[in-house]
């Protein structure tokens, strides 16, 4: 079955993120986010500047619609747009860029995908939690929140990444 287009899936996931952010605030120890995975899965051919602009708009929309602190998601997400290429090169190797192929579970494997998702989510959460706590919470609490959120968001991110990445296996047969 052919998956829907990237842009449509991106908008759907953003909507899901907004809804989850508004209605699924169970505990202050868990920050639910799909945004870093969405930025990671932007097609390879897109430039870093494009990714940063996409991250800025995505973060702005998420903050604006969730009625939270405007700017916090942008602050944490724009660095992911900047570092995305470096992380992809580090985890998947530079062949991805030379071939011009987008990342996918089938081609790169679940291990590497999980690692890349954990890296972007970890960076995003580190900035987000640091700014969100604003020195009012003990460091142990912030660290615990980061660990729990990273574990949960990485698992959720695997599903989100599966929805966003194209299955191009047939092209290479």
């Amino acid at each position, binding site marked *: 079955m052919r998956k829907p287009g990237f842009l449509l899936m991106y908008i759907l996931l953003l909507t899901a993120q907004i809804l989850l952010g508004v209605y699924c605030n169970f505990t202050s120890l868990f920050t639910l986010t799909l945004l870093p995975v969405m930025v990671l899965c932007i097609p390879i051919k897109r430039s*870093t*500047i494009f990714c*940063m*602009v996409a991250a*800025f708009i995505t*973060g702005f929309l998420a*903050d604006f619609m969730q009625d939270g*602190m*405007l*700017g*916090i998601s*942008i*602050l944490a997400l*724009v*660095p992911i747009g*900047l570092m995305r290429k470096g992380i992809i090169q580090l985890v998947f190797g530079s062949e991805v860029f030379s071939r011009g192929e987008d990342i996918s579970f089938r081609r790169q494997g679940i291990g590497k995908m999980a690692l890349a998702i954990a890296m972007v989510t970890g960076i995003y959460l580190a900035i987000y939690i640091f*700014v969100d706590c*604003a*020195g*009012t919470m003990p460091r142990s609490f912030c660290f615990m929140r980061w660990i729990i959120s990273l574990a949960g968001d990485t698992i959720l991110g695997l599903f989100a990444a599966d929805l966003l990445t194209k299955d191009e296996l047939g092209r290479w047969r």
Partner: protein
Amino acid sequence: MPRNSKAFLPLITAAIFIAMEIAAVAMLKSSSTLQDVWLNRASHRIMGRLWSGGETVRNHFSLSKQNDALTEENFALRERLREYELAQEAAAEAGESAFMTGRRFTYIPATVVKMSRNSMHNYIILNKGSEDGVTTHSGIITNKGVVGIISAVDKHYSYGLTLMNTNVSVSSRVGRSGMVSPLIWDGKNSNRGVLKDIPLHYSIEPGDTVVTSGFSNIFPADIPVGITGETEIVYGSTSQTEVILFQEFGALRYVTIVKNPERDEISALEKREEER
């Protein structure tokens, strides 16, 4: 042209990234009071550290000036102390009609321009000369002890022989009321001298303080020089005592020139008496 634009791409990317982050921070500041206060506090802390760091660097580079100022202050204080000592001596003289030992010395601060340490006849050049009131046969001291004697004076500089010169001899006393004997350099170590020509019946214990005797018209009395070490008999007639000098010649930068304005008068009197 495309090559140029490729070279500028990282700069443009960095500029866009910074602009977006600044925009995010601005939005955050306006939307949340807690984050606004926290960011303000963080920015004040960073600015405070930057300013204090800059101040530390500035202070480091002005250390030389501060040293000079402290040295000047030190000299002024030493001059005042000497005045008090003289006043005390005058009072003692008036009370006990003791013989005159206090002479009015003047102190001139100076910086070492050049100094040799690796020959038997070491010398020192100071940045004060005849225009500053320096005369030959003035003493050179520091707060750690005797350094040497001025032997030649130019307009702006003076040349002295240090204690690390085998031609220099300083009249010294062991303790405040002990035996007086000439102190010379041992010629081997930069921090060792020898008290010569000590009569055998004097016994000097190791650890006694050696000070200037004040008999030479060059140095005031009681300037610390060093502490005594081992004593040995020379040719069975006299003994000599090793002196560990307080002054470290390797770390010498600032000195004080001690001038005795009455020296010429005393020398003339001595000469007249010798001619008679």
